[in-house]
């Protein structure tokens, strides 16, 4: 009995998207299972964006905040450092300081930050709210206006606030991140709701909600796999949006990523452990279908880029 390679091709295809202007940082577009270059078109590498925020990152563990200690007091300097020194292909600005439980910065202040960051970079910008359902609406309206003409990706629109945020994205010609909570059907439903507002479904990025390694990554992993299978095998246009893995935020708050080695001697070197925690989480969501990742540590991003290099090199 001879071996016959059982290759799978699909009618469905993930929408291809450019962050920023045309031709800038293109991602998505595959008509094959994640990274299955051997059996179908995977035209673009996954895009990794460096995460920065509008306030000093005193909520990040030292292992990662120390990398940015000279620039993180100023979001524009921080963004410039990521672009120029770390060769970031995109920047993700999280307006965490607007959260009512934190600095409670105003939409106007957020808009100024967005403006100064955009002035300091030429790579595409992703603009994220603070995940406050009430506050993200006004903050992202102001941010979207401040970024008009720069074709950003803004988010995250959720079931309870998507109308305001989608309208702000549409009015200012930005793309939109739609986030639902670890459920294939909720992800699909939110895409449908946003499309029904007249928002172009090919300008939506789906965030099925990331989780950290050891803290529910298996849920994210399987939801991503199922969304991608629906996009490809069922050719479902409401599931063909490229997917986002918001990795850094979820990984750097878990104990394993940041506990000092003297506290946890069985867990090994603190520096490598934190980087590995972020990189392995990112690799898992990549293998499950993420097209875009948001990450924090340059060494984790560096390892991912090498990993992606290998995944895009077929020799034999």
């Amino acid at each position, binding site marked *: 009995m001879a071996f016959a390679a059982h290759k799978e091709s699909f009618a469905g295809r993930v929408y291809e998207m450019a962050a920023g202007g045309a031709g800038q940082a293109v991602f998505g577009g595959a008509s094959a299972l994640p990274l*299955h270059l*051997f059996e179908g078109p995977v035209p673009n590498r996954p895009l990794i964006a460096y995460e920065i925020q509008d306030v000093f990152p005193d909520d990040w563990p030292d292992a990662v905040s120390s990398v940015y200690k000279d620039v993180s007091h100023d979001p524009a300097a921080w963004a410039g450092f990521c672009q120029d020194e770390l060769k970031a292909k995109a920047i993700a600005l999280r307006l965490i300081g607007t959260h009512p439980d934190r600095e409670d910065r105003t939409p106007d202040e957020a808009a100024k930050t967005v403006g100064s960051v955009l002035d300091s970079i030429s790579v595409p910008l992703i603009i994220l709210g603070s995940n406050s359902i009430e506050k993200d609406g006004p903050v992202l309206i102001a941010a979207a206006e401040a970024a008009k003409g720069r074709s950003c990706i803004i988010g995250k629109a959720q079931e309870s606030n998507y109308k305001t945020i989608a309208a702000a994205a549409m009015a200012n010609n930005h793309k939109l991140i739609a986030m639902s909570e670890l459920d294939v059907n909720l992800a699909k439903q939110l895409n449908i709701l946003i499309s029904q507002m007249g928002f172009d479904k090919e300008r939506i990025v789906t965030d099925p909600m990331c989780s950290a390694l050891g803290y529910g990554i*298996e849920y994210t*992993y399987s939801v991503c796999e199922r969304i991608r299978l629906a996009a490809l095998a069922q050719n479902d246009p409401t599931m063909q949006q490229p997917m986002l893995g918001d990795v850094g935020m979820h990984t750097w708050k878990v104990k*394993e990523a940041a506990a000092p080695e003297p506290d946890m001697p*069985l867990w090994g070197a603190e520096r*490598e452990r934190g980087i590995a925690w972020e*990189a*392995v989480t990112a690799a898992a969501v990549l293998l499950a279908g993420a097209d875009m990742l948001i990450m924090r540590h340059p060494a984790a991003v560096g390892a991912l880029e090498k*990993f992606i290099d290998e995944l895009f090199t077929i020799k034999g």
Partner: protein
Amino acid sequence: MALSGIEIFKLLPKTNCKKCGHPTCLAFAMKLAQRQESVDLCPDISEDSRRILGDAAAPPVRPTALGFGSGAVKMGEETVLFRHEKKFVNPCALAVEVKDTLPEDEALRIVNDVLTSGIDRIGQRLEIDAIVVTNASDDPAVFEGLVRAVAAKAPDIPLILSTGDPAAAEAALKIVADKKPLLYGADDSNAELMAKLAVAYDVVLGVRAKGPEALSALTEKIRALGVEDMVIDPGPAGAAEILRDNTLIRRAAVKKNFKPLGYPVITFAQRDDQMLETLIASLCIAKYSSIVVLSGAERWRNLALFTLRQNIYTDPQAPMQVEQKIYNIGEPSEDAPLIVTTNFSLTYFIVSGEVENSRVASRIAIMDCEGMSVLTAWAAGKFTAPRIARFIEESGVGDNLKNRELIIPGYVAILSGALEEKLPGWKITVGPREANALPAFLKTLNR
């Protein structure tokens, strides 16, 4: 592909005799197709049919053991490509390589790292499962010496003997054959001699060829030489080929029941860059390798890979659970807060993490709710006032407290009245809905 119910039905006697315990042969056939019954229950089936059904019922990836006795690692038996379809069965073994070109004390230091690699996580013991001893010296005597030293230092851990030289293989097998090592390996140049050794010493044979097609031809040849148990290596040159080869092999086995590739896969993940190696190993864990070979047993990497393996191999239908008991965070005094929640592992992790962040020494009463989260358990009648009250009383935790106060999750605030009735002498306090509000809540508790 496994046989359909109708195909199986055609092979049965069609007498509807009910001796198998099912009303009709068709009903029995359907159970067989779902692998829920054994064909042995039918007393009247023909020998031919029994053989056909036996072959078809065999798991598409052959069950194979690495090592011996209680330390043996089960491999194979996988039935799906995606973990949401059905639980991945046997978590892959993580192995660390020692080469016989290393100075012996250096090699034994790595062996010691392996022996001390164990950690406990959610009630599971996680550790490096096996050691690969590689004959990089090309000298059988040197190889034999290191195998002897490793086996003496680590007598219970499964061994993988990596050599293409039958003389070196036999020298090593003479020492450790009773430990049922994996002999890796056979290739096109040495298949007959290696197969002979595998049969003579009754060990699993690792088989290597470039790509699934050449590999399947080689396993067929070796099977004809009398070797039943194999572990296969398609020799991928990089991550793209690991993903390609492992996917094509798993598909051939699971979707086509293609026996020549129905064996566990071994993948060598070593890279000069340790972080890249960690990601290559992650790919192997997620995508179908049964043995992943690493260059060392660094603790930071072990923790990440053990955790990923545990997560990927979790049953998607059965949430991870932690043990029901009172967990101390820090060193709680008799004034420390007592928080109750359910035993869904994520609930436990997130709540305990936030309590740790608060730096307020506390007790967390984790109650067995079959691994459900708070709201699900409440809705399912598992996390109710009478049950919580009984758990708290039986735990005896009240004896450690000066003031009997129990903090309940904000989502079940509705239970506070009933709980005060069921727990006389206790004060019930409603905590925050979300765990991330716990640090602020604990700091403002007035004590």
